[in-house]
């Protein structure tokens, strides 16, 4: 099958001998669709099912496509080989607090750019966007030194602080606030509401979908963050899940794939669940900016 076979097809004539060819084409398209589903979902299925297999099943050849007697103890094995409960808690703290603070800072900043005057606002906005050009690898070493100077290495503050600046979130929220009807905020102002009140009582409720989008995308990013927690944590009790998984691999060796895979499942399941429920928001947030 080539790319050309799967092109959008302006409804062509479906008469006589053509219908056979058409049916063959549809069959081919469905075959391709299944192929894509298998390639995308297969490894995930393999991960989750293997995390539930007994070791003989994991190491058997030919492979067990469907695990028979589920071995939930792989999870407790991972749990006892490394403090996964603690990793989980750390990831939760870092992503929830980090997202909350970042979101509030972004909301305030976006609101200011839309509803308040300031000399040189345009230049400031460009300055804000400019931060997007700075790759994470450039900030790595200096941020580590800053955090070390503050005495925050191996602490929640150290894990959270460098990720708090928001360009993407501020930008999206500002774009959204620009579309809100000015009359409503003016009316609130005439009613004597201050700006904080307008932001939280008027603008925020009207921006709920965008706020959810930004919050989810920011949270997923923090949950998956790898290089910064790797650098800034030095003891097991401060590791986040992805870093804990890395260390589990290095200590467990590959004799115990069951536990390692169970660890990987623990890292992905929260995001996977979130994604399946809120994919509309997450996809919209992550693909923002692609439109033309």
């Amino acid at each position: 099958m080539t790319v050309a076979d799967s092109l959008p097809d302006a409804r062509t004539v479906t008469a006589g001998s053509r219908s056979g060819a058409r049916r063959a084409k549809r069959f081919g398209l469905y075959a391709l669709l299944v192929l894509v589903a298998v390639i995308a979902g297969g490894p995930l299925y393999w991960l989750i099912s293997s995390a539930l297999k007994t070791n003989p099943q994991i190491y058997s050849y030919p492979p067990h496509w469907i695990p028979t007697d589920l071995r939930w103890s792989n999870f407790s094995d991972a749990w006892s080989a490394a403090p996964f409960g603690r990793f989980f808690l750390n990831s939760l703290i870092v992503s929830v607090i980090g997202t909350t603070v970042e979101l509030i800072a972004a909301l305030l900043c976006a609101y200011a750019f839309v509803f308040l005057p300031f000399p040189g606002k345009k230049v400031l906005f460009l300055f804000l966007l400019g931060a997007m050009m700075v790759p994470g690898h450039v900030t790595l070493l200096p941020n580590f030194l800053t955090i070390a100077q503050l005495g925050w290495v191996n602490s929640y503050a150290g894990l959270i602080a460098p990720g708090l600046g928001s360009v993407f979130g501020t930008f999206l929220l500002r774009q959204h606030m620009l579309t809100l009807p000015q009359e409503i905020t003016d009316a609130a102002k005439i009613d004597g509401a201050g700006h904080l009140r307008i932001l939280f009582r008027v603008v925020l409720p009207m921006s709920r979908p965008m706020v959810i989008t930004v919050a989810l995308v920011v949270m997923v990013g923090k949950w998956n963050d790898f290089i910064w927690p790797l650098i800034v944590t030095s003891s097991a009790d401060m590791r986040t899940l992805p870093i804990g998984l890395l260390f589990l691999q290095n200590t467990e060796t590959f004799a115990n794939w069951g536990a390692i895979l169970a660890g990987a499942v623990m890292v992905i399941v929260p995001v996977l669940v979130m994604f399946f429920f809120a994919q509309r928001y997450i996809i919209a947030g992550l693909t923002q900016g692609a439109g033309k």
Partner: protein
Amino acid sequence: MTTDLTQDGRAAPPNPATAGEAGPRARARRRRREYLLFAAFAAPNFFFLLVFAYWPVIYNAYLSLTDWDMISSSWHMIGLDNYTSLFADPDFRGSLWTTVLFVVGIVAGGLLLGLATALLLNQRLRGRDVVRTLAFAPYVLSGAAVGTLWLFVFDPNYGLIRPLLAPLGMAAPAMMTDSKWALSGLVLVYLWKNTGFVAVVYLAGLQGLPRDVFEAAALDGAGAWTRLRRIILPLLSPVTFFLLVTCTITTFQAFDVIAVMTNGGPGTSTSILSWFIYDQGFRTFDAGRASASAMIMFVVLLLITGFQARFLQRKVHYQ
């Protein structure tokens, strides 16, 4: 806004909101208060960005001119020595070359596969939304977990790769421990992880295309291939360019899967620039060389972004 009423400089007409504080001085006071409020609202975000995004660039540029070893309390300014020594170092040059192969493999492969997937998902097929969700899911998953998963898939003895290659009469290669294969293995993993993103962006682009163009083309007897080459690809070129730039930038910075799967090895076979920087800084503790290589990455990415800006400008004039 109420202040707009007085743009001509005359006193404001009575207004319920500002009753009792009309007059130019009151307005100036109001304005000042709004400036202050702007500053207060924007300050937290700007503070974080200044401390953790802008200052690091300056600090990093400075460190790249020193010979600091991250342990001693003193260091020397050595000018551009780090840069000259980097370009003289076969490991660094090799790392640049590996980065090019890695980025080109992932970006070109991802764009092709993503476009093909998007064209497929743009058909009226039952279940396509499920497949779209499934294809996008890997993109949101932790690279550490994805790397772990694929180490298992690539395991030559009990990974998925063995039963998959067996019908072709091939023995499973030791993907990640063989320097001939490791880079290709990483490219495959990143393609699996990122192609759904490309597909979803292309799909949005396809669905934004005007339907009548296709119908006109079909009436003119244009075949599928001609329609793809002559109509769809040109119309999608802004999307392609957006993807080209964003994917290139993120691929340059790919790190987590590498840290889990290969640690830049075997040998230096998967030591792309992002790994090289980490290795110099946090494993060899050569702050100067790490910062200098980070500056080089920065400049390369700036050039790519600048190229995008210019291209897009020309595009706007062209239309």
